[in-house]
């Protein structure tokens, strides 16, 4: 039963069937990076179109499709998977666990995300991508001709199911699988932010699921939820979307906050200032994230009282965010700061994100919002928080955890070129967009007229986009040429948290013996007060591991087939796809699989924590 070793597998089969959180994390990361490149390319095409007034580089329809796919891909298929990659890889290591709580579900979550992303992008080849923007407001989306928006609905539905599963998985993992001694208030901040993010996913994604379901029924099955002539209501979509959508932007920023907390404290060589305040600020941001959705809808006409309530609630979020900013500054204060690439991104994040926050408070002023609404001012604002926050966080995390994930260090020299080009390009692109917005340039429009003083700033903005594109190429080159830097990868940054107590690349079982956590920053405590190694919380014994499984791919594949059935309204395909899914789920329930044991002899042969 539970003691046979797994048969030797080919590399491809190993990755397709893996339930190892580290491999799934790497797959999330690489898939996210791919979609990031695709969405970035879409953005550059749009910026070329806007380089000069009345350009005809792209048609209006293509522009709308690029605009929609850029937003949708960046949020759902790039930023979130990249964070999920880090969470999957790092969180079990940081809490001293051998895997996540449900390895099979973890793998299913990844494949659902990937298939959802593929469904969405197949639309490019089947007669037009979705064209109603990432918000897909009805009636624009419900009346959009062609199948584009159907792809949007089904793609997001499938990948959303995967995201929801991963979120629940992280919650259970963090509640149940912490190593002995690791109380909630000893968890590293990245684990904390993963925890809060997962809560947001758990509560926010159902609203999106419902919204997409209603839109699907309206578009394909003759429903009338958003059809005013039949007694429907179009504003319901906006509410449902933003009840999901606002927590979604916190889902994107909180993991970045977690990464910055780790990076800043490591490279300032100081314990994080105000740890408990940081934890509570994270929780409060997560909570308030559900109370402010209507600030996206100030101009819908909800009335002055509703607008005022949501304006005040929105501004309240600046308080916990401010607490976090000051805590990072005070962590740096008096620290022995090392300007590595990871830390440069963290340091650049602070002013960039504060600028985005300030324009956020400006936008929250509901009276002024009537002026800003749907102009480039909004575009500038959310790119400042998403790039200046989430993307900087992703890059900081990339440089910080790369040695652990891939077993070699990225070149610091190339990394610094990448950082400076990206930083300058980012500010060039988006700083001027504040002024474009204040001058009245509407967002989501494929062109603008000559002679309105918009030319110069748009040209600068496009140049900045080229800078960012070039910077990204430097990152790719860096990844390729740094493969020889394999020395000093176990703990290259003098790390503070448990993931740096493992070897690089990490053993399949993470820790030969579950570590005993004696303080916050567990590893650093042992370095200062112990012998620099984690104390073991258990005797050395056989390690029980789960078997890999090919079933998640088939579950996800069945749902994708059913999605295509829905898109092209073919009942046989829908039923066929669902049969595949449910049959595979039944197989999963029927087949007994108790995993396998790694014997002690194999573990001592290549012991996990020794350096």
């Amino acid at each position: 039963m539970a003691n046979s070793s797994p048969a030797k597998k080919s590399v491809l089969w190993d990755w397709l069937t893996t339930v190892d959180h580290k491999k799934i994390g790497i797959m999330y990361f690489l898939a996210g990076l791919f979609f990031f490149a695709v969405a970035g390319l879409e953005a550059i095409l749009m910026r070329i179109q806007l380089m000069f007034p009345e350009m005809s580089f792209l048609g209006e329809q293509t522009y709308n499709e690029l605009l929609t796919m850029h937003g949708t891909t960046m949020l759902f298929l790039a930023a979130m998977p990249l964070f999920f990659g880090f969470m999957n890889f790092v969180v079990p290591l940081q809490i001293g666990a051998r895997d996540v709580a449900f390895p099979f579900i973890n793998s299913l979550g990844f494949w659902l995300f990937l298939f959802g992303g593929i469904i969405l992008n197949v639309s490019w080849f089947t007669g037009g991508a979705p064209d109603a923007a990432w918000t897909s407001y009805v009636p624009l989306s419900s009346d959009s001709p062609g199948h584009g928006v159907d792809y949007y609905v089904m793609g997001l539905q499938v990948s959303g199911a995967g995201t929801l599963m991963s979120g629940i998985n992280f919650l259970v993992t963090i509640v149940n699988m912490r190593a002995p001694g690791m109380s909630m208030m000893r968890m590293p901040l990245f684990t904390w932010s993963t925890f809060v993010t997962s809560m947001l996913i758990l509560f926010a994604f159902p609203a999106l699921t419902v919204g997409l379901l209603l839109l699907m029924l309206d578009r394909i099955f003759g429903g009338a939820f958003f059809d005013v002539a039949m007694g429907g209501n179009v504003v319901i979509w906006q509410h449902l979307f933003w009840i999901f959508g606002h927590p979604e932007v916190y889902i994107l920023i909180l993991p970045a906050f977690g990464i910055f907390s780790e990076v800043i404290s490591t490279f300032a060589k100081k314990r994080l200032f105000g740890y408990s305040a940081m934890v509570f600020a994270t929780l409060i941001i997560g909570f308030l994230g559900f109370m402010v959705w209507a600030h996206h809808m100030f101009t819908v006409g909800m009335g002055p009282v509703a607008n005022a309530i949501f304006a005040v609630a929105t501004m309240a979020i600046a308080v916990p965010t401010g607490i976090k900013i000051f805590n990072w500054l005070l962590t740096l204060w008096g620290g022995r700061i090392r300007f590595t690439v990871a830390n440069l991104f963290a340091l650049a994040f602070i002013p960039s994100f504060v600028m985005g926050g300030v324009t956020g408070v400006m936008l929250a002023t509901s009276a002024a919002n009537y002026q800003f609404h749907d102009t480039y001012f909004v575009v500038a604002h959310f790119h400042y928080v998403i790039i200046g926050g989430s993307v900087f966080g992703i890059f900081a995390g990339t440089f910080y955890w790369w040695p652990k994930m891939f077993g070699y260090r990225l070149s610091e020299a190339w990394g610094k070129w990448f950082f400076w080009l990206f930083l300058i390009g980012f500010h060039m692109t988006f700083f001027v967009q504040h002024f474009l917005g204040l001058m009245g340039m509407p967002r989501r429009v494929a062109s603008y007229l000559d002679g309105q003083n918009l030319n110069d700033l748009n040209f600068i903005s496009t140049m900045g986009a080229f800078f960012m594109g070039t910077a990204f190429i430097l990152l790719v080159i860096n990844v390729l040429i740094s493969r020889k830097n394999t020395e000093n990868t176990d703990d290259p940054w003098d790390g503070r948290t448990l993931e740096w107590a493992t070897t690089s690349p990490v053993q399949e079982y993470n820790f030969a013996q579950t570590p005993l956590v004696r303080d916050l920053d567990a590893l650093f405590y042992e370095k200062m007060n112990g012998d620099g190694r984690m104390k073991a919380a258990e005797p050395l014994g056989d390690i029980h591991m789960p078997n890999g499984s090919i079933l998640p791919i088939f579950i996800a594949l069945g749902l994708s087939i059913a999605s295509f059935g829905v898109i092209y309204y073919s009942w046989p395909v829908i039923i066929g796809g669902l049969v595949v899914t449910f049959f595979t789920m039944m197989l999963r329930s029927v087949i007994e699989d108790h995993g396998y044991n790694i014997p002690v002899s194999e573990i001592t042969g290549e012991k996990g924590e020794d350096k």
Partner: protein
Amino acid sequence: MAHVDPSAPLEGRPSKETERKLKRESRTQIVSFVFMIFITSTAFLTIASDAIPTGFAIPFILLLAAVQVVMQLYYFMHMNGKGTGWVNAMIWSGLFVAAMTVAALMLLIGIVKY
């Protein structure tokens, strides 16, 4: 940690303490089950009889429903057991967020502008 085969059958008999606890638990279950049947039938009678005005009936059965949900969660789904702190926190914050959202939507989607 010893590695136990999770599929192995349990051996031996439960202790006296465990037996007492199981007995107490099954009594609670039966009592709450009877009480829930009572609540359900009260709700049914409220609607079925003509004596009770609609204006009273609707909030009344909603109240009964809320009581039943809470009992369901605590007595049947064992949210009152040990080590359920996080479950409680999550369920209640989820209910809170959902209730706030529904209440706000009821106010905001209507014809009246606030």
